[in-house]
């Protein structure tokens, strides 16, 4: 008998006869509070900031100069770009060198890159979370992981949902999903929160919409 059959047989013996089941109660809230789209965006910004992400707001015209400034402030010389990042986002002439994530590029090569700029799949206001699903403006999971500086652009209000239940119903589980709430952090030493350890130590979120 294979272990598979053995385990399944043990389960069946253990649970015995299965009578009628009570329904799973789903009376918990879909969303905690009623908000206008602007209020949801404000809540997202507040929660992101509370987890020590840096939050910026701008419109389409203001985005390229803002990104240029944010990269320059860190002395960024090389920036990773996903395959379908809107070209005009990094349109400024004198910017850092753009690096493309190729199949052949090794983690060590990516480790030498200063920053990464991506879009996102959606953001969750109640928890201060951005979710990446590997879409063309986000790229592979590794590009938002190895560089020390991640700038993520969220289109507001279209990409903002209020709650975790609303986020899950908009996501495709077959895609690789990364939920990010604030930059990498640890509390393993005397429960003192320290940003960093392995993921990007600086997360900047740009809320892109009408000003």
């Amino acid at each position, binding site marked *: 008998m294979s272990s598979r059959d053995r385990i399944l047989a043990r389960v069946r013996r253990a649970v015995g006869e299965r009578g009628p089941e009570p329904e799973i109660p789903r009376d918990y*809230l879909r969303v905690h509070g009623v908000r206008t789209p602007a209020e949801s965006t404000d809540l997202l910004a507040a929660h992101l900031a509370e987890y020590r992400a840096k939050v910026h707001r701008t419109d389409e015209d203001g985005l390229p100069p803002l990104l240029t400034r944010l990269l320059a402030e860190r002395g960024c010389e090389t920036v990773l770009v996903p395959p379908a990042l809107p070209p005009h986002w990094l349109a400024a002439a004198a910017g850092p060198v753009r690096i493309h994530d190729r199949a052949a590029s090794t983690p060590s090569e990516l480790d030498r890159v200063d920053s990464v700029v991506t879009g996102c799949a959606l953001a969750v206001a109640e928890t201060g979370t951005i979710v990446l699903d590997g879409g063309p403006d986000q790229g592979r999971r590794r590009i938002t992981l190895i560089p020390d500086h991640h700038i993520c652009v969220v289109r507001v209000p279209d990409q903002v949902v209020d709650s975790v239940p609303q986020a899950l119903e908009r996501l495709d589980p077959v895609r690789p999903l990364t939920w990010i709430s604030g930059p990498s952090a640890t509390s393993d030493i005397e429960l003192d929160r320290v940003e960093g350890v*392995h993921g990007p130590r600086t997360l900047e979120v740009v809320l892109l919409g009408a000003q």
Partner: protein
Amino acid sequence: MSGTYLGMPAFPEAAREAVRDGVLRANLRHATHTIRGKRALAVAELADWDRLRAAGRAVKDHTLRHLDRYLLQLEAAVTAAGGTVHWAADAEEANRIVTELVLATGERELVKVKSMATQEIGLNEALQAAGITAYETDLAELIVQLGHDRPSHILVPAIHRNRGEIRDIFRTEMGRWGRPAPEPLGDDPRELAEAARLHLREKFLRAEVAVSGANFMVAETGTMVVLESEGNGRMCLTLPETLISVVGVEKVVPTFRDLEIFLQTLPRSSTAERMNPYTTMWTGTTDGDGPSAFHLVLLDNGRTDTLADPVGRQALRCIRCSACLNVCPVYERAGGHAYGSVYPGPIGAILSPQLRGTADAIDASLPYASTLCGACYEVCPVAIDIPEVLLHLRERVAQGGPVTRDGIRVRIRPAHGHTAERAAMRAARLLLGHPGALRAGERLLARARRLRPRRLPGPGRAWTDSRELPAVPAESFRDWWAREREACR
């Protein structure tokens, strides 16, 4: 379960040692009280907390009752998404499967995401025996591994260490495992975290194989879910070519939608955050993104035996948040090592004796490692009635009875050391059944009350080791009652 802790003293002895350690008690008190306060605030933010808790409990109970169906559905979904599913009845089999998978890659080292299941089966030791080095990459697990230590908390395994101790471990041990700690090294948490970042980064960037557990597995879609904070999980889950996940069979949930409950209750219960910094979800393999080979090892190792006990099976609802550890007055003083298991605290006190059986002295003593104050039940996000299971297991230890071991119904005998307890109960039954004898005994006791010893001799001694023998009143209740009624007439 693995025999890693053979020779471990039973809980009372281990706890007695631990409470004498002033540094340990201070570290633990600081940590548990900090996180306890923060958790209450995070939970209070959600008006529907009780409903989320009830829903989480119902989803878990439902899944356990139909575990066979959901495991088969999960297997089909993972396979369809390009993964391979293996089934392991016990620790030995799981270790063998993982070892063979690693050897087949030609690699002799791997990186690990913090995982309770792999600790439970002693995977690192088994890999070591096969010449494979497993590097723990969670900061706390790294501290434990470098310190040749054992984890003492589910969420923060190095909770028993303070910054000075951690600096000393990094200074002396990092160089033996790879990149040494920078000199000079202070004890500021920021500096220590930076040392860990540099030490581990060289391992992440060259790793070809990773081993993880999972917080949840979705039967409907085959999606695996790992919650973490540092990003070491993301490193292990996405950079290597081969990913092997060892996951207890009870971690399955039916639908992707069910995650909406646990993604709200788990972070708030464990780290007291609205959401943990990173959650990774993956389904089989994805072309061009992440590992090209994914293996899922489904682990039983006593879980189906636990499922066979209608009272005890609720322990399988556990989502390993560790909230029960942080509120437990016994854990706070005794520390995690006293529990002699990778699962310490209240949940460990009910989980370990079920997964491993109660044959060992440590496992037989665990159901008694509690004041039954009920705080653990109050904070549990899946409403496990830990005190109920503790009492149930105490009865099993003292009285023996039917249990399931390795899938077979057997009857266990009362544990050694409980003979006095049973003799006392038999005597009490006899006396209470014979009122005349009871009255005579009470009068005799009242007259001899001045002779009351402070400690009992013989088998009763263990009981008076930690308690005063109660004073004997001058008159028994029954005599008093009779006299009072006489006076009223």
